């Protein structure tokens, strides 16, 4: 295949794609990135908080260079019913140590910066056009078709995200089931920087990540999120597609009700919605991952379903960045050795096994199943929490019952065996 147009073609200039292209270009390979957005990030949405460790591995100077919104110094998790909300608020100086910290990001700013890094290293970019199909020869990927153009390469890297229309042709991956994927909906709500800091009790330039469970999805499997940006708040929901489809409340109505909840409304009061977005989230974990390579092709990031949604934490960007880094390196090595067959590319999977990507996905591989089956987490447990807290905090002159008695009464409604059973299963899955 000495007559290929490029050494490598990368589909998608998201987190995985731009990093993979950077690694290839840095290794001196000719690389073309095809991105369907008119600029990097134009089609992308995230929650979003980036755990910076993976980016730091690729770009040690990212702390001063990357367009981060705010450093996250407050972690909040909440359990809500329609009329109550119990929040845990955590902050520590350890969260601010280099390599352990995380930042809120907006993709329309972040992705062009990342693409710029690859471009500076020598990668070429085409924007505004989607790859429609893969060129195949004797069962091997040998290039792409985009519009009228057919472009060939020794190796193609699919970094086209959760809604990949190409993995089926590349590795025979069937469209995932509606129970394995969640729909994400989000609004960006503009507010002055000082107001944001005051409302989440953060120091200047710092911010909060806040995850919600319970009434935010009207009891369906999923959760709510809030991340503070410099001058806006990202507020949204993630809910399993099959479960939303089976319930009575549309996901956009859930978001509206969430915004009006007594513990969320004051947070966004006076803010102006500036964008309404939607994007999917893979939730099935390791069990829904496609094969990561085949002859002439590698798959990295969410096109390979690398994402972890634990309710108190959503991770996909750091996986995509690390997977892009290893996919790019493996491809460069295979090109140098003159062999981009499946066997030669298989060291990519090995690299991810030794890295946090597949280690963490394996560690939590039971969690998706637990979440799906533990619907009490979204309904009964928030109510239980409310009953306990009401009993503890409300004073109205009637004789107070001992806490133990109140607790037992509240637990009785859920069933002690359910509670203990769910707790044990949850511990195992985590």
């Amino acid at each position, binding site marked *: 295949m000495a007559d290929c147009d490029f050494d490598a073609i990368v589909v998608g200039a998201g987190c995985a794609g731009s990093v993979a292209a950077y690694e290839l270009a840095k290794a001196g390979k000719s690389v073309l990135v095809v991105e369907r*957005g*008119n600029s990097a*990030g*134009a*089609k*992308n*949405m*995230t929650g979003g908080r980036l755990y910076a460790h993976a980016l730091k591995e690729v770009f040690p100077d990212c702390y001063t260079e990357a367009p981060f919104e705010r450093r996250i110094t407050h972690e909040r998790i909440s359990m809500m019913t329609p009329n109550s909300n119990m929040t845990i608020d955590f902050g520590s100086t350890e969260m601010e140590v280099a390599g352990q910290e995380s930042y809120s990001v*907006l*993709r*329309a*700013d*972040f*992705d062009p910066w990342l693409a710029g890094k690859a471009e500076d290293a020598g990668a070429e970019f085409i924007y*505004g*056009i*989607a790859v*429609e199909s893969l060129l195949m020869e004797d069962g091997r990927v040998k290039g792409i078709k985009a*519009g009228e153009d057919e472009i060939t390469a020794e190796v193609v890297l699919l970094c086209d995200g*959760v*809604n990949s*229309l190409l993995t089926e042709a590349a590795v025979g991956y069937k*469209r*995932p*089931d*509606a129970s394995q*994927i969640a*729909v*994400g*909906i989000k*609004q*960006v709500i503009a507010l002055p920087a000082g107001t944001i800091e005051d409302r989440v009790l953060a120091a200047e330039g710092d911010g909060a990540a806040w995850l919600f469970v319970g009434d935010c999805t009207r009891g369906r*499997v999923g959760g709510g999120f809030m991340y503070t940006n410099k001058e806006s708040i*990202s507020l949204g929901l993630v809910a399993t*597609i*099959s*479960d*939303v*489809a*089976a*319930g*009575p*409340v*549309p*996901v*956009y*109505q859930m*978001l*509206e009700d969430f915004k009006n909840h007594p513990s969320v409304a004051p947070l966004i009061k006076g803010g102006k*919605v*500036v*964008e*309404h*977005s*939607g*994007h*999917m989230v893979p939730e099935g974990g390791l069990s829904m991952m496609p094969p990561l390579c085949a002859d002439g092709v590698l798959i990295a990031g969410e096109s390979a379903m690398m994402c972890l949604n634990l309710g108190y934490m959503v991770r996909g960007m750091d996986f995509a960045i690390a997977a892009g880094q290893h996919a790019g390196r493996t491809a460069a090595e295979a090109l140098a050795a003159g062999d981009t067959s499946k066997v030669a590319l298989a060291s990519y999977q090995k690299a991810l096994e030794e890295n946090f990507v597949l280690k963490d996905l394996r560690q939590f591989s039971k969690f998706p199943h637990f979440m*799906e*089956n533990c*619907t009490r987490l979204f309904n009964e447990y928030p109510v239980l929490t409310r009953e306990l807290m009401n009993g503890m905090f409300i004073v109205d002159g009637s004789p107070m019952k001992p806490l133990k008695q109140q607790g037992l009464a509240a637990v009785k409604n859920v069933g002690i065996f359910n509670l203990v059973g769910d707790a044990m299963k949850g511990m195992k899955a985590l």
Partner: protein
Amino acid sequence: MSHTKSTELTPITVNVDEYLGLNKYEVDEENPHIELVDEPEDKEFLKLIKVCPAALYKIDASGKKQFDYAGCLECGTCRIACGDSIIRKWEYPQPTMGIEYRYG
């Protein structure tokens, strides 16, 4: 899953079209990138009403099913929900067309 199946819809109080109006789009009037089958089944269409984050699947006052691809966020949710049933075609929009996030 222990949830009971529901075919009921709660009352909708939100006007999502107003929010979509805040987004930036390059609408391709000529080429619908998503198409439904001719006679979409009620049960499947109801799923799309609930899962599309842009609320593009609607039943109008006369009971007619409506879908307008112009406000599409290109998320793929309808493809996952009903790709085997009533979604006949799901493609990305033509070059340079569709949603363009300014925040993301």
